[in-house]
């Protein structure tokens, strides 16, 4: 076994530490070292997008980033969107409302992609083509994407002051 490395980082605002071989990727580290199994693994070569998380606010494939490379960084995963028992984040609620998920396996990655889009837009309205382009890196075999596109449009174009999407 290669030497292991102590890896300290922030996950969903909480300081976390784990020990892993340098070859362990961030997805496996989150899932199997820290027990945060909401981030899913679908291809391990950076195409399917199921493992998408935010690192320092930017969406990345956690299967293509080594855990050791996340030392000192701030990682956000699907578990950070809504605390246990707390109401859903508007993107989560909208995905359900618009039937934007079926088996739910790609869903955490889709949510993290949309969260980044929501922050980048910071209130600017968005059209369907832009949403579809943003979702091009998240493979879904169940839904045909339409429900998640509708969910995103509903949240991202929600009138301010109404059901305002959270923009942290």
């Amino acid at each position, binding site marked *: *076994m*290669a*030497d292991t*490395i102590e890896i300290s980082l922030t996950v969903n605002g909480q300081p976390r530490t784990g020990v892993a*071989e*340098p*070859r362990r*990727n961030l997805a*496996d580290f989150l899932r199997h070292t820290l027990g945060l199994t909401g981030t899913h693994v679908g291809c*391990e*070569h*950076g195409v399917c*997008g199921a493992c*998408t998380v935010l690192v320092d606010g*930017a*969406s*990345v*494939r956690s*299967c*293509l*980033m*080594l855990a*050791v*490379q996340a030392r000192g960084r701030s990682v956000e995963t699907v578990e950070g969107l809504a605390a246990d028992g707390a109401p859903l984040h508007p993107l989560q609620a909208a995905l359900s409302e618009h039937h934007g998920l079926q088996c739910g396996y790609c869903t955490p990655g889709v949510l993290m*992609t949309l969260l*980044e889009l929501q922050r980048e837009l910071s209130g600017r309205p968005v059209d369907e083509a832009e949403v579809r382009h*943003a979702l*091009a*890196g998240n493979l879904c075999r169940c839904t045909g994407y339409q429900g998640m596109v509708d969910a995103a449009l509903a949240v991202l174009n929600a009138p301010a002051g109404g059901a305002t999407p959270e923009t942290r």
Partner: protein
Amino acid sequence: MKAANFAYHAPTTRQELFALLAELDDARMIAGGQSLVPMMNFRLAAPENLVDLNTVGGLDGIEVAGDRLVIGAMTRQRAAERSATVARVCPLLVETLGRVGVQQIRNRGTVGGSIAHFDPTAELPVAAVALDAEVVLESLRGARRMPVADFGSDYLTTEIEPDEVLTAVEVPLWPEGHGAAFDEVTRRGDSYAIVSVAALVLLDAAGRVARLSVAIGGLTHAPARLAVDAMVGAAPEGEALAALAETARALPADGDGLMAAEDKQHLAATLTERVVRRAGERARRSTGG
């Protein structure tokens, strides 16, 4: 699909980095990792030593130095794509970067990494060749520059030495008012290019080509530069443009299991015509013509 073990090295300075590369056997550098890590997960790459460029200070950044745009190798593709500086002085790069993979890849992938990897289907080397860009290769032995056009020696193989680091990409700037365009044919949306074309054009006051550069990717192991002299003095349209497209059709191409060489040449001709026309239109617009 778990990577084989390796020793992980996280140098923090250039000197440390160069020293490591001079000393280590079987070392690979990791930049964004968007091509290397998949290969490691498939165990198509299993280096004994992995040297992380992400921990080295000062390898990223975008600046205009004289008549050149200098992009640090570790600049994320997404950062370059969104850079106001790049947009102002080199719109071709913005358009090209927008076609590199998907956002999650560009957030992590680097400008230097894409050129160092030199995938024959990659977009960035095509734009770099059209721009006459140079890579800066540094090691303990010193620094050297090499045109990207000369950088690729074979499929996925470059002229870089094992102890060298691609530290920056230097792009000679085109004059204000030039037009540029990039386009590619993919098998699906954002997937790899089959053939891609980048073009820059400068028009004279009469709307005729004063200067033109065209590079075509996907035909062989490295982007090809198109001979464009016949276009100088002609408007970037009509028969002259059609003749240029035929020049593109005549470039050497390697067929593969999916597409015959002559069909790739056909795509090269089609895209050349479209991209040069678009670049010309943009040049006309920007010069108010």
